[in-house]
Every structure is written in C-alpha cells, then in structure tokens.
C-alpha cells in the first residue's frame, strides 16, 4: 500500500513560562493512499497540534514528517472563520487556481464544476459566506481544499459545528468524494460515532500519545487499551 504521509517519532512542546510543556510525545503513524484515517481523542489531547505540525504551522522538536504528495490541504472546524467574510464564494474558490496561474476562463469552468461536485448552485457561488448556512459553508471549504487537486486532506472536526442532519450530509459528501477522487483523509474528531461511520482505520490519542491504532471494525469490537474501552463505554450501544 502506498503512503501519502509518514510521521516518525515526532515530539512537539510549547514554552510555558520557564518550562516547556510537551504536547506531542513520540508520535509515529502513516496515512495510506485512498483511506480515511480517523484521529480521536478528548479536547486538549494534541489532535490539533498534530495537524498543525503536519502542515508546518508548528515546529517539531524531534522526529520527521515526510510528505509523499504535494501540498496537503485542510478543512477547518469553524466554517465561519475559515472563509474570508469580504469575498464572494466564487472568488474564494478561484483564489487557489490563481496561485496555480490558471487563466481566467479555465478558472471559472473549474469553479463551476467543483461547485457542482460539492452540491453548490451557481447562484450560491455568487453569494458571500455570511449568506450561506453552516452546511453550505462547509461545502465551500471542501471545494476550496480540493480545487487545486490535492490528494491528501486534513479535516479537523469538519462536522462538529453542524446540526446532526447536516452532519450526515457532509459526511456522506466527504466519503463520496474520497471514493470518487481517490483521496486520503486524516479525519480528526472527538465523536466516536462520526469516526465509526467514516473511517477505515482509527488512532486513539491521549495526553499527546497514540494509545492504539487499528482498523475501525477491530477497534470498536476489540479495543486493546483501557482508555479506548473507557471511551467506547461512554457510547450508547
């Protein structure tokens, strides 16, 4: 199986007063081609720091992060702050293409095609983000992440801010796009239900360490670590 990302023994710490606080401790894992890898853990366990480290927003103290694809893109939790409020949706979607020096006509075509793929109408493309619902905004974020042709996406709690029914639609859209376009997704969530429905494999994280990683079915049927068992007990059957 080909890999899109390898994380090898990575540690990250923040300065806190005079001491340093270790947020990630000796993390190793890989993301394979064409899979959705779930990352689950309570808030504050280092999930977001890990995604920032992968994208290069945070410096690592030790270890190595190897990308086997170009430019991973990210889908953020808050569909309000992740879209520029003063730009129309079509402008936001065109911007990544401008960076690739694609001519105007071609850009317009690509934006329309991508809009259709994620379920946005031509009329919605002309609106400002504030004129869209949370679910529609998240569709825009997904389109923006994919439009440059990225093969590896990090999704940081992409459905946590949405209503349950909308959550389902966005999850289905992501799974559909993943299969159609052969994407690899690192899917971060605190919600085991969401993880169960979406992911091929799951990593459980606690206090900056990876407790265990398994195929989703195995993890839910036979959790190895006591922490995972604890998490699963909290779920309604």
């Amino acid at each position, binding site marked *: 199986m080909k890999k899109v990302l390898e994380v090898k023994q990575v540690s990250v710490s923040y300065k806190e007063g005079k001491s340093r606080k270790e947020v990630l401790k000796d993390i190793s894992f890989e993301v394979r081609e064409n899979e959705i890898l779930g990352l689950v853990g309570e808030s504050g366990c280092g999930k977001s720091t890990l995604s920032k480290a992968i994208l290069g927003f945070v410096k690592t103290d030790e270890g190595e992060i190897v990308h086997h694809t170009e430019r991973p*893109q990210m889908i953020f939790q808050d569909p309000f702050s992740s879209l520029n409020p003063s730009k129309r949706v079509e402008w936001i979607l065109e911007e990544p293409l401008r960076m690739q020096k694609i001519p105007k006509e071609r850009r317009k075509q690509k934006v329309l095609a991508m809009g259709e793929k994620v379920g946005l109408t031509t009329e919605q493309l002309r609106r400002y983000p504030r004129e869209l619902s949370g679910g529609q905004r998240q569709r825009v974020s997904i389109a923006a992440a994919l439009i440059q042709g990225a093969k590896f996406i990090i999704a940081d709690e992409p459905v946590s801010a949405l209503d349950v029914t909308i959550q389902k639609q966005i999850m289905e859209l992501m799974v559909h796009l993943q299969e159609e376009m052969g994407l690899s997704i690192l899917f971060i969530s605190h919600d085991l239900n969401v993880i169960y429905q979406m992911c091929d494999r799951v990593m459980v994280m606690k206090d900056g360490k990876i407790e265990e990683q398994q195929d989703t079915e195995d993890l839910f049927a036979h959790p190895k670590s006591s922490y995972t068992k604890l998490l699963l007990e909290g779920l309604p059957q």
Partner: protein
Amino acid sequence: MKKKQKNYNLILGIFIALFMLLFLLAGLFYTPYDPDAMNGAAKFAAPGTEHLFGCDHFGRDILSRVMKGTGTTFFVAVSTVVLGGGIGILVGAFTGYFGGWVDEVLMRFNDVVFSFPHILLALVFIGVLGPGKYNVILALSVVFIPSFARITRGEFLAQKEMDYVKSARLMGVSHLRIMFVHIFPNTLPSVLSMAAIGFNNAVLAEAGMSYLGIGVQPPDASLGRMLSESQTYLMSAPWCAIFPGLCILLLALGFSLLSDGLLKKGGK
C-alpha cells in the same frame, strides 16, 4: 433575522459631508467675488443681498473667502489623512501580521509619539520646518501615523489568527497578497472610521494652527486664519467669525457622524 435599523448617523453624516464637498468644489470654480479683492466701501458690510455672508475688515466678501478657505482646510485635512493614514496603515499591517522584534521596536516608538498631545507635537514640527500649508500637512501626518498604525495593527493581529488566513497560506498565497488582498478589506470598517476621525482632528488642528498664525499663510484663505483675524471685531461684526466657525463645525460634525455611522455599519 434581526430587523435592520436605519443608520441615521451614516445618512446624516454622508449628507453633511456631501454638502460641504459640493460647497468647496463650487468654490474651486466659482466664487461670487474674488476672495482676495479688497473693497474699502464694503468694509464690515453686514450680511445682505449684495454680500450674502457680509464683508470683513478689508471689505473682502466672506462667502467667497469661506468657500476658498474650506477648500484649503479640506485639502490640508485630506492630505494629512492620506499621507499619515497611508504610512500608519502600512506600519500597522506589517507589525500586526509579522510580529516579532520589529513589531516591538516600532510599537514602542509609536508609544513615544502617541504619548505627546497631537497638537503639541505638531507645533514642535512646525517650529523646526517653519509655517506654511505644506509643512502643516507634513507635521500633522507624522503626528497621525501612530493612531492609524495602532488600529490597523490590532485588526491584523486578530485577523491573522483566523482560519481563512491559514487556508490561504496552505494554498500558496504570498504574505503580501494575504495582507492586502485577503485581510485588508476586513479591516476597512475600522480603518475608514479612523480616517474620518483623523480627518476631523486634522480640520481642527489646521484651524487651530492657522488661528495661532503658524499654519496656512496669507494670502491663502483658511478657516482658522479667518477666525483669528476676526476676533478683534467679534462684537461689532460677528459675521466675520460666525461663518468660518460654522464651516469648521459642519466639516467636523459631518465626518464625525460619518465615522460613527461606519463603525455601526461594521458592527462594532
């Protein structure tokens, strides 16, 4: 949906500002009399059909002089805002976006300039540069840089943490493009409101300095100079002071309402 409230400040502000703008634009092309022409016979003529706003101690038509003077004052104020505001915005954008030691140094320097009263510092500059229209613009601009820098910096500091900026970085957008194409439009409500306040302060500062005789020099008419010249005759010929004063008031009021209205519109 919340019901949209009418923004009376903005409407009234735009109305007054537009009125003053028309008034001074008209003054560029047409004044009833030559603003500098003296007429001994019309000395201290009271407002009437011949001279709508009356005449001053040299028999110069006050309406014509007010039209010209408003233009001068407006020019000084706008130049100050464009020059001081422009530099201030640049400084604020770079320090807010990049942070680090450059930010520290520039902001401490900013604090130093900020801690002096505006007008006092401008007086020092005039003392060095000498009086005159262009020196007033230069002095006021320097004095105005810190307030613009501070507001812009704060906005950039808040905006750069937003996810849309991170997203743009990931897509390969350059820092400069992020600063001025992505972030800057979102700071406009605050920056424009600051510009309106700055314009106001500049109008009052120019009037004040010209009043003291160190601002705009004769024969240029300026509202502050007219006030200063008319104070001797305040009791005998009050129209000499009332009309220039009214113009300063309207200019300041119009742009102050405009800035309030803009802030409200920006939702702050």
